[in-house]
């Protein structure tokens, strides 16, 4: 689950990591009140996407009048497809320098990875591409430690004042500790501001908590950015089904993420366009009935591919669920099956006897027929 800037900064502040004084606001009046209290401020759109500065989502304001105008403008924006619903109003601070710091799961190395650079700010990705040695990469294996000596050695080659070095080391250690304590996938501070007195302050924050760990992080559960879901996607969640609504008109119902993605790929390969992602594999393989109702609830769907390849998931159980729902719903759209693996013979018998349909041997043939029928 991703946290918006203001949500992530609340987690930082609770852990004692310094952030600017700020208020989260949703109306112009709230923004004006915050600026009257805090003085000159930055007004920042709270959206789950990057590049908001370039989209006009961050404005510096000196007084209430400017605050009202900026708030009204930003609240009217849509940034990267996200309507701006909230603003973080933060006291302006005088910055001497911008650093970059992050801790993340390194998926390839399978260890936590600490990243640090003295060239923080908006162009960090260009720094990474053109000047990779300017970014310090410090793997911290789960059975290792991030001791001061090791960090100082890693930072030795960077352009950092001797006076600043100890506070950077301390900040990185606290960042790493927070990442571990909260089961984070990513904790990124960019920029990490150095004030004129040498104090470090987190000016921005990207925080992502591991959904699989929420059972042991109760204080983070439910606090991140709400996922944007369509009505049908919400219904999927309620039924325990992984359903993603897409733009096309060929409905997809398959078991397992790999086979479902592949079914979508083959639809595209034959010039069609998938209407959804929906897998009923794993423990959800008994949910054929709910799954079929969900796919058919999308009015864009003009034909349907049902593609099962059972290993753990029994195709006869999945097919039984589909056929039972089909007999109740009596949909008018054409459906094309490909069914293989565990329970295949019984599944074919169910389809032939109750729906009068014979599954295609090759999934490619089922998909090609469905693409043609949707046109």
């Amino acid at each position, binding site marked *: 689950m*991703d946290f918006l800037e203001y949500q992530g900064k609340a987690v930082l502040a609770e852990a004692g990591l310094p952030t600017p004084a700020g208020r989260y606001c949703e109306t112009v009046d709230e923004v004006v009140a915050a600026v009257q209290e805090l003085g000159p401020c930055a007004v920042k759109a709270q959206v789950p996407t*990057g590049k908001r500065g370039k989209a006009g989502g961050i404005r510096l304001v000196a007084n209430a009048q400017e605050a009202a105008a900026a708030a009204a403008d930003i609240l009217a924006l849509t940034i990267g497809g996200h309507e701006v619903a909230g603003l973080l109003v933060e006291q302006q601070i005088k910055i001497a320098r911008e650093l*970059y710091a*992050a801790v*993340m*799961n390194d*998926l*390839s190395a*399978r*260890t*936590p*990875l600490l*990243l640090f650079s003295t060239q923080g700010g908006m162009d*960090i*990705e260009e720094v*990474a591409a053109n000047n990779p040695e300017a*970014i310090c990469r410090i793997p911290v*294996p*789960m*059975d290792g430690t991030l001791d001061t000596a090791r960090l100082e050695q890693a930072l030795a080659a960077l352009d950092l004042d001797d006076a600043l070095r100890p506070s950077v080391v301390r900040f990185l250690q606290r960042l790493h500790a927070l990442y571990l304590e909260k*089961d984070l*996938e*990513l904790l*990124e501070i*960019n920029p990490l501001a150095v004030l004129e007195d040498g104090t470090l302050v987190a000016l921005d924050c990207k925080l*992502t908590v*591991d959904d*699989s*760990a929420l059972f*042991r992080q109760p204080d983070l559960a439910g606090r991140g950015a709400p996922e944007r879901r369509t009505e049908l996607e919400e219904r999927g969640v309620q039924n325990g089904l992984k359903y*993603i609504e897409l733009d096309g008109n060929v409905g997809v119902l*398959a*078991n*397992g*993420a*790999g*086979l479902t*993605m*592949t079914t*979508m*790929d*083959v*639809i*595209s*390969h034959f010039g069609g366009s*998938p209407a959804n*992602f929906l897998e009923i*594999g*794993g423990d959800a393989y008994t949910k054929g009935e709910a799954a079929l109702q969900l796919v058919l609830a999308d009015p864009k769907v003009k034909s349907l591919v049902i593609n099962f*390849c*059972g*290993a*753990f*998931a029994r195709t006869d159980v999945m097919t039984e669920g589909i056929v039972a729902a089909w007999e109740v719903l009596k949909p008018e759209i054409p459906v094309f099956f490909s069914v*293989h*693996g*565990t329970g295949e013979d019984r599944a074919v018998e169910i389809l032939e006897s109750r729906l009068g349909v014979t599954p295609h041997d*090759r*999934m*490619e043939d089922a998909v090609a027929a469905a693409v043609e029928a949707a046109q």
Partner: protein
Amino acid sequence: MILQKKHKVLVQGITGTQGRFWTERMQEYGTTVVGGVNPRRAGETCCDVPVFGSARDAVRELGPIDYSVMFIPPSAALEAATDAIEAGIGHVVTLTEHIPAHDVMRIHAAARHHGARIIGPNTAGIVTPGEAFAGIMPAFNPRIFQPGDVGVVSRSGSLGTLISLQIVKAGRGQSAFIGIGGDPMLGTTTSEALAVLGEDPRTESIVLVGEIGGTMEEDAADVIRQLDKPVISFIAGRASPPGKKMGHAGAIVMGDRGSYRSKREHLEAAGVVVVDTPGDIVGELQRLTA
């Protein structure tokens, strides 16, 4: 990672519904299951084998064990995997999905320390047709698995099953099926699984079933260049919306890798035949190895 009848297998979580069902299937097929683990049922017998309180107890009683298969819920996976690793079990087949990522990294650190190999998490398991299997794959279905000379590496269980079935339908069979798992962070990478098949004398050709996301397929290109066996690949996810971006940090670490196009380009540059649909795999296989 190529399981044989002579390998001793421990089932952690043997007494649960799934553990019991799949242990019976493994035993019928020829897997040498020597024991099970359930801390609350030590001393009992399940599926005709003794149940121990821990993997360490099992090894103490039975002597060295080669493989463990885990039917364990995510919140208990770290403890169970660590137990198996510290007991000296060399291969831990981790079927569990949704293990917290930090626990996966802790398991991996322990495995590195003890020289153990984790297969998974979120794998459907490994199959050596005609020999043995470990996990939740339909090894016993003769339409899907037959002894042969094609090695299969797959992130996905369902898609790997479909492709295995097509291989058998074409009159061929598999030397080994290695399900490396669908999680973003895996104990055994594509490269490591390919290297095992590269050294396996029974494997003449390799089918690599990849997926978008991560950089495992790109990373495997170097290993593939060293292989003297043909590799055919299908990468799932070409039509899927791109996955979520991990801030700037993700871009710094991944660069422009991870996409379908990047994977395909890296693999093709290493000499892999990448097909557009899974149904094309068998034709390429016959063409390259007939």
